[in-house]
């Protein structure tokens, strides 16, 4: 069985007026199907850039990537059919209703008009937006928008689901709802590639994770393995937390990122 995500030597350089930024500097990934894979890193580490490349929204400067067994550069449509993506900034059309947006998205994935409305209804129930379904998105709260965005990433029943910081800005209850949802989607066989700022979230959800810093992968493994590794390397008396692993990997001082990591 082929890997759900396979990246070899992936690089991305942004060329802009004020100089070049090398956002991703040679990343290799091998994610087997069926996992929840966590992609962690401080702000500006290159997480979103990686997600955009793997979902065909952006070209690779160098390297190759295959998602659900399809090469992103050679067959982008093939990849698009098999993946779903909810980007960091929930990009929604404020003038449509939630239902219209989902129906449109489903139709663009080739569903007939009637199949699309059935699918939209299922997804609205799934993310608990049935009450707001026929209101304009303009009036949705931030959390409702995120949930709608998640639903729209699911219209095509993707093999691999990319979620770029799906819980940022959600209240604790909504966050737990999203976690449950991710687990449920994963139980049905979908591989989930999830970026997050919350280490607690990674610890709870992810089978494996990678920590990226400055465009390079600096740690990779299961949460337990990463903690055990840190413990043996540093000879800690107590079991380290994922925070400690993150801090150790990225060289960030605890007080600086404390706000990020201690929220639940």
């Amino acid at each position, binding site marked *: 069985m082929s890997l759900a995500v396979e990246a070899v030597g992936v690089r991305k350089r942004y060329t802009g007026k004020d100089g070049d930024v090398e956002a991703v500097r040679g990343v290799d990934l091998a994610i087997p199907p069926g996992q929840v894979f966590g992609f962690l890193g401080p702000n500006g580490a290159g997480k979103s850039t990686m997600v955009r490349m793997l979902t065909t929204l952006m070209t690779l400067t160098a390297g190759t990537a295959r998602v659900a067994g399809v090469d992103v550069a050679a067959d982008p449509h093939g990849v698009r*059919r098999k993946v779903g993506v909810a980007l960091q900034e929930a*990009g929604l*059309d404020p*003038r449509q209703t939630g239902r219209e947006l989902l129906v449109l998205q489903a139709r*663009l994935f080739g569903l007939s008009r009637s199949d699309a409305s059935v699918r939209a209804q299922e997804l609205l129930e799934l993310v608990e937006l049935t009450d707001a379904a026929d209101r304009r998105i303009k009036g949705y709260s931030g959390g409702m928008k995120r949930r709608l965005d998640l639903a*729209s990433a699911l219209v095509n029943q993707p093999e691999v689901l990319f979620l770029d910081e799906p819980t940022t800005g959600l209240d604790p209850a909504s966050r737990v709802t999203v976690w449950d949802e991710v687990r449920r989607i994963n139980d049905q066989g979908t591989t989930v590639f999830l970026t997050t700022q919350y280490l607690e979230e990674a610890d709870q959800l992810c089978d494996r994770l990678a920590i990226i810093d400055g465009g390079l992968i600096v740690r990779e493994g299961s949460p337990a393995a990463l903690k055990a590794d840190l413990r043996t390397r540093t000879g800690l008396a107590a079991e380290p937390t994922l925070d400690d692993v993150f801090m150790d990997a990225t060289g960030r001082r605890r007080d600086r990122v404390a706000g990020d990591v201690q929220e639940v």
Partner: protein
Amino acid sequence: MKESFVLGNRAIREALRAPDALIPTIFIPLFFLVVNVGQTARIFPSGGTPFLAGQNYAAFQLPSSLLLSASFGSAALYLVEEIEGGYFDKLRATPIPRMAIIAGRLYAELIKTVAIAAVMVLIALPFGIRIESGILGFLVLLVLVALWAVVFSGFMQLIAIKTRSAAATQGASLVFFPLLFLTPNFVPRNLLTRPMEVAATINPVTYIMEAVRSLILYGFDWPVLGLGFLVVVVAGALMLALSVRMINHYD
């Protein structure tokens, strides 16, 4: 192809949902029509002005107003809003030809402009304007004006995709605006001063304006009409070719 219509119908639905956004598109051009005609009609009495072919001066001015209303480029403003807001990426993540995103908006622009131009002509009719070329000519006129709207908003969409900025896109529409006025919009080309005549002759919009005007004042003047359509078709082909290139290289 099918996707273009699905996306186009959404754009039309949104336009219908915000009808107030269409008001300037109709009323600003009509305002110019009323003001321009009101100020100059006595210079151009229908009896003593051969180029009016027996109609009043408003008939001569109507094409400028129609083309003005077709040159708001609102499709591009919606598009750039979508780019800035991120919805454009959601559409790009679907397995549709990327050109469908642009083509959908162009299709909506076509339909919208046909409707708006028809309303404007219907508003003008009670003021003594006749379409000399008849019902068929009226339909040809709607098609030509709408095709111009497609071309204009298509070029504006190119700028939207290139700059990804609402401010820049809005600014660009002001750069294109002179094209509408470096035309024989007050008198026929042969009565313009020499520099204006040269400018108007170079300006492709002139030929569209003359074609629309010929339908209103003179009936079916095939060479003039043919030239008008040639201009929109050539400009349209150029716009589509550039659009395909640009959207497929959007990164």
